[in-house]
C-alpha cells in the first residue's frame, strides 16, 4: 500500500530511548523519557536515583538508552548531578547537559534536601521529576505526591490518603530558579518545547512531568495517555511555567473545566471514594486552580 501524503510527525524521529526496556505496559514514565530525550539530544548525561527508571533502563550490563546514565543513591539525584556538572567542566566539557531524573519519591520526599541545596546554589543542572504519585518501584506506597483520597499499599482504602499532594512547584518557585515548568506525557509537543527551553537556560531548571502508572493506579494501560490529558482538562495538573519564581505563564487556559469524576472513575486507586470525599477533592482542585490563575494574572 502506498499513500500520497506524508506521515504527520510533530516530534523529531530520532530516538534515544530504546525498545526492550523493562517498563510495564502503558508506562507513562517510559513516554516521559522518550519525549524528554528527543528534546535533549545525545549530549546529555542522566543521574537516576532509585525509582522505576532505575529498573526500566535494564539490568547490568545492559541499558536501553543511548545516552549515558549514572545510577545514584535514592536521595542524591540533585547532589550527584551537581558533582557531575562540576566534574565535566573540569575535564573540559561544558556542552553536555547534566540531568537529574527522579521519581516523585526521590524528589518530593527523600531527595528534597539535595534538590533544595542545588536550587539555592543555582547549580547548572536540569532536574526532572516524573510524577506517578507514589513509590512504585517498591510496590505502590504513598509519597507526599500522592493525592488526597488515593489508595496505596500504605494507605489502605479504609485509611486512604488524608492529606493533599505537596505543592512541589511552589517550593521550587520559592528558590527563585530561572526556569521551571509542569508537563504531561499526553502533551508531548508541549513537553518537548519545555525540555528544549530548559536545556537552553543556565542554572537550576525543574521539570515536573505527569506520568500515569497503570500498575500503581489500577488503571487500564491503554488509558495512560487519556489520563494524562484529563488532568489538564479538569485542572488537577495544570500546564504552566515559572521564571525566577515570579513570572507565571499558563500554557493551556482551560475554559470549560471538567469535573474530576470521570478521571477518578478510570482508576482503581480511587474506587472506594464516596461522593463526600470526591467533593473534598474537587474543592481542593478548584482552590488550587483559582490560586494559580491569580498568580498568572499577577505576573
Amino acid at each position, binding site marked *: 500500500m502506498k499513500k500520497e501524503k506524508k506521515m504527520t510527525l510533530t516530534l523529531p524521529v530520532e530516538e534515544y530511548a530504546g525498545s526492550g526496556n523493562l517498563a510495564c505496559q502503558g508506562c507513562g514514565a517510559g513516554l516521559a523519557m522518550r519525549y524528554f530525550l528527543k528534546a535533549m539530544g545525545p549530549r546529555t548525561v542522566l543521574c537516576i536515583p532509585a525509582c522505576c527508571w532505575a529498573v526500566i533502563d535494564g*539490568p547490568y550490563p545492559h541499558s536501553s538508552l543511548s545516552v549515558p546514565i549514572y545510577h545514584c543513591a535514592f536521595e542524591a539525584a540533585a*547532589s550527584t548531578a551537581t558533582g557531575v556538572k562540576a566534574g565535566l567542566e573540569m575535564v573540559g566539557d561544558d556542552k553536555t547537559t547534566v540531568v537529574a531524573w527522579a521519581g516523585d519519591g526521590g524528589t518530593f520526599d527523600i531527595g528534597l534536601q*539535595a534538590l533544595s541545596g542545588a536550587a539555592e546554589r543555582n547549580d547548572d543542572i536540569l532536574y526532572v521529576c516524573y510524577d506517578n504519585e507514589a513509590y512504585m518501584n517498591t510496590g505502590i506506597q504513598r509519597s507526599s505526591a500522592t493525592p488526597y483520597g488515593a489508595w496505596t499499599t500504605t494507605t489502605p482504602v479504609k485509611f486512604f490518603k488524608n492529606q493533599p499532594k505537596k505543592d512541589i512547584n511552589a517550593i521550587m518557585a520559592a528558590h527563585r530558579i530561572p526556569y521551571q515548568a509542569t508537563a504531561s506525557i499526553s502533551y508531548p509537543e508541549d513537553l518537548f518545547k519545555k525540555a528544549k527551553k530548559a536545556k537552553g537556560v543556565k542554572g537550576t531548571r525543574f521539570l515536573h512531568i505527569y506520568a500515569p502508572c497503570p500498575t500503581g493506579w489500577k488503571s487500564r494501560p491503554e488509558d495512560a495517555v487519556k489520563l494524562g490529558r484529563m488532568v489538564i482538562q479538569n485542572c488537577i495538573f495544570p500546564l504552566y511555567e515559572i521564571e525566577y519564581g515570579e513570572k507565571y505563564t499558563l500554557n493551556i487556559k482551560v475554559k470549560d473545566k471538567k469535573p474530576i469524576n470521570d478521571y477518578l472513575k478510570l482508576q482503581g486507586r480511587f474506587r472506594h471514594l464516596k461522593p463526600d470525599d470526591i467533593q473534598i477533592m474537587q474543592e481542593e482542585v478548584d482552590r488550587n486552580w483559582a490560586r494559580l490563575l491569580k498568580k498568572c494574572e499577577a505576573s
Partner: protein
Amino acid sequence: MKKVMMGNHALSYGAMLSRAQVIAAYPITPQTQVVELLSEMCADKTLNAKFIKVESEHSAMAACIGASITGARTFTATSAQGLALMHELLHWASGGRLPVVMGNINRSMAPGWSIWTDQNDSLSERDTGWMQFYCASNQEVLDTVIQAFKVSETLAIPSMVILDAFTLSHTYEVVDIPDKAKVDEYLPPFKPPYRLTPDDPHAFNGLTSPEHYFELRYKLQKDMEKVPALIEETGREYEKLFGRYLGLVDDYLCDDAEIILVTSGTAGYTARVAVDELRGSGVKAGNLRMKVFRPFPFEVVQRILKRAKKVAVVDRNISYGHHGIFAQEVKSALYGQAGDIPVFGFIAGLGGRDITPASFREVVDYTLSHDIPEDNILWIGVKK
C-alpha cells in the same frame, strides 16, 4: 619549602599539591580549617578547582562521586557525624570504583556531643571498601594525601586519610612542602579507563542480579589485595623524590623486641616514650604503629609481631560487645602463626581522654606481669 602548619592545613596542602579538581565539603569541628584553606586556595587560584559548598556531608560525598565518575580528581574532608551521614554513599563510591580521597578527622561519635578524638567514626566504616590510612604527623598527612590519590586512582578504590582531632588536626608542626613540579611527576593527571561522558555512553551501577554482583565484589577484593604491594612501591617512589618513605606500618625498635606495643594515630609517638623508658630499664620493648588499616597489612604485621613474646594493642575505639578493633584484627593476623603469642587488648582514650606516657606504663606493667590477659578488654584510665 618548610612551613609550620596545623594538621588540617596539611590535608589542604596535600589536596592542593595533588591538583584536586572538584572539592565538595561541609563544615564540622574539628575539620573546618581543611575546607577554609581550600576555599581560599580556590579563590586565589593557587588551586584550579571547583569548590561546591554543599548543604550536607551527604551531598558532599554525592557530589564527589558525581565528579569522580566524569574523570575529575576529587577531594573532601569530614569528621564523625559527617562521616556517619555519608555512610550509604561510601559504598556507592567504592562499589562504583571511584577513587575519591577524603580526609577524616577522628572525632568521637555523639551522644553526648563530643568534639574530641577517638576512632569509632572511621572504624565504623571499616567494611565500606575504602582504604584507611591513620597518620601520626602533619608531614605524614600531607604526604599520604598525595600517595592516596596515586594508589586510589591506580586501583579505582577510594581512600580515607585519617588524623586525630586536635592532637593532630590542630597541632602545629614543621612540614616540608614538596615541590609542585615533582609532585606532578609522581602523580600524573587522573585518566580513568571509563567515565561518564556522551562520547562513550554507558549506564553505570545498573540493577545487578546475583548472576554478576558476586563477581563485582570479588574484583573489588582482589584489587584491595593488591594495595599493600602498591603502597610499598609508591612509598619507595615517594622516598626517591622527596626523601620520605611511606609504608604500611611504622615500626620502632621491633627487631629484637620481646614486647611490642601496637598503636595507631598520634598515640604511636607517646608509646615510643614508654618504649625508650623500658629499654632504659633493660626491657626489650618496641612499637608497631599501624598506618594502613584497610586493607589490613597481614604480611608485615605477622612478620614483625611473630618475633615478639607478647603483644599489647592499644585501641582508641571499641566494637561494643566485642573488643578493641585493632586488637581483634591483630589477633586474627596472628591466628595460626607459630608461637601462639598472647595479645593483650587495651582500650584507652575514648572521647579524647588523654593517652599519656603513664597510660603506656600501665599497659606495659600489666603486660609484663601477666602471662596471658585476664580479660579481652583491659581498660586504661577509666573510672570504673
